[in-house]
């Protein structure tokens, strides 16, 4: 007890009972709005790959995370037409950090092809974070835990570095802002089409992958405690030798 002050901090941490959040989720009785379309299909596919019909996690699951959150845009602002570019600004709210979970990956899934009645658009997403490098998944990436594309019109971009380094550890309200930029096919007349009627969830969503921190935090604190105890012991031994 005297030599392990870091360990007692762990025991006092009120956020660590991981299972209590199930009770918190259950407390709300009202019907919750359920996303439809591609985002729901994506998560259902992820679930089917990771668990069987009874909810037992599959032994050979490749998801690589204990928790995956699909975040829909909270707001979208349409920018005026800029040359050939149709631009929409998407804001994704990031909920407050839970001590028990560690963010291990962040990706944005978006429509890179939009086929509308009079328009065929090619689109891409840019994080609105300075000095942020994003990585597109190559289609043949071996060992990737991401789902194979369910639709040719959608693609996935890794923004883990952007979110972890630039945004995740900020205090207060955190918003991940992305620019969804589309360009009409070459040769066609540039017309300003209306984004209205198209839900922002129809064009992009954010995926956040988490693992438990309790084991890694415990291991880290234990290691710190061991180190402190070893230092204390060695200083006592040195004094004894003297």
């Amino acid at each position, binding site marked *: 007890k005297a030599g392990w002050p870091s360990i007692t901090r762990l025991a006092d941490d009120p956020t660590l009972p991981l299972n209590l959040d199930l009770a918190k989720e259950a407390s709300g009785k*009202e019907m919750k*709005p359920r996303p439809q379309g591609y*985002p729901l299909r994506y998560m259902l596919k992820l679930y089917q790959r*990771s668990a069987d019909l009874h909810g*037992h996690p599959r032994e050979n699951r490749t998801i690589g995370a204990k928790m995956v959150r699909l975040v829909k845009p909270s707001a979208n602002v349409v920018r005026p037409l800029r040359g050939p570019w149709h631009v929409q600004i998407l804001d994704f709210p990031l909920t407050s950090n839970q001590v028990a979970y560690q963010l291990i990956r962040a990706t944005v899934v978006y429509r890179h092809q939009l086929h509308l009645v009079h328009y065929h658009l090619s689109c891409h997403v840019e994080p609105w974070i300075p000095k942020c490098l994003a990585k597109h998944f190559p289609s043949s990436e071996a060992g990737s835990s991401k789902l194979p594309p369910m639709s040719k019109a959608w693609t996935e971009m890794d923004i883990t570095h952007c979110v972890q380094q630039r945004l995740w550890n900020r205090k207060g309200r955190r918003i991940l802002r992305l620019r969804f930029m589309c360009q009409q096919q070459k040769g066609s007349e540039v017309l300003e089409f209306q984004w209205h009627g198209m839900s922002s969830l129809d064009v992009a969503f954010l995926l956040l992958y988490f693992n438990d921190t309790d084991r890694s935090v415990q291991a880290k604190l234990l290691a710190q405690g061991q180190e402190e105890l070893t230092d204390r012991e060695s200083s006592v031994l040195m004094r004894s030798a003297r």
Partner: protein
Amino acid sequence: QACSIASDVPCHSQEHDGSINNQCSLHPYKVSFHQLGWDHWIIAPRLYTPNYCKGFCSRVLPYGLNSPNHAIIQSLVNELVNHSVPQPSCVPYKFLPMSILLVEANGSILYKEYEGMIAQSCTCR
């Protein structure tokens, strides 16, 4: 060991403690999230098999129950010293996790593996 050397600790047989069918054991049980009133926010799975433990905890606890020595001691205390100290209870021993797909209050969809959701074995303690 106690019943063979101490004359005031009778060596009860299993028949005296209750038939084998009433012994502490795991019972399968399936429930739907609709029955729990949770189907408005849980997308998958539809059915949930938590199981439960039920049965008599005899003083002679079978090895497979994984009971600590304390359970035997508490049973003896109840019988010989103080009846207000309760008999050991038949409770879950090991658990299995479960993956759930759910909708959060803000409309986000969450896949999460919850620990301790399904009783896998029982013990008396």
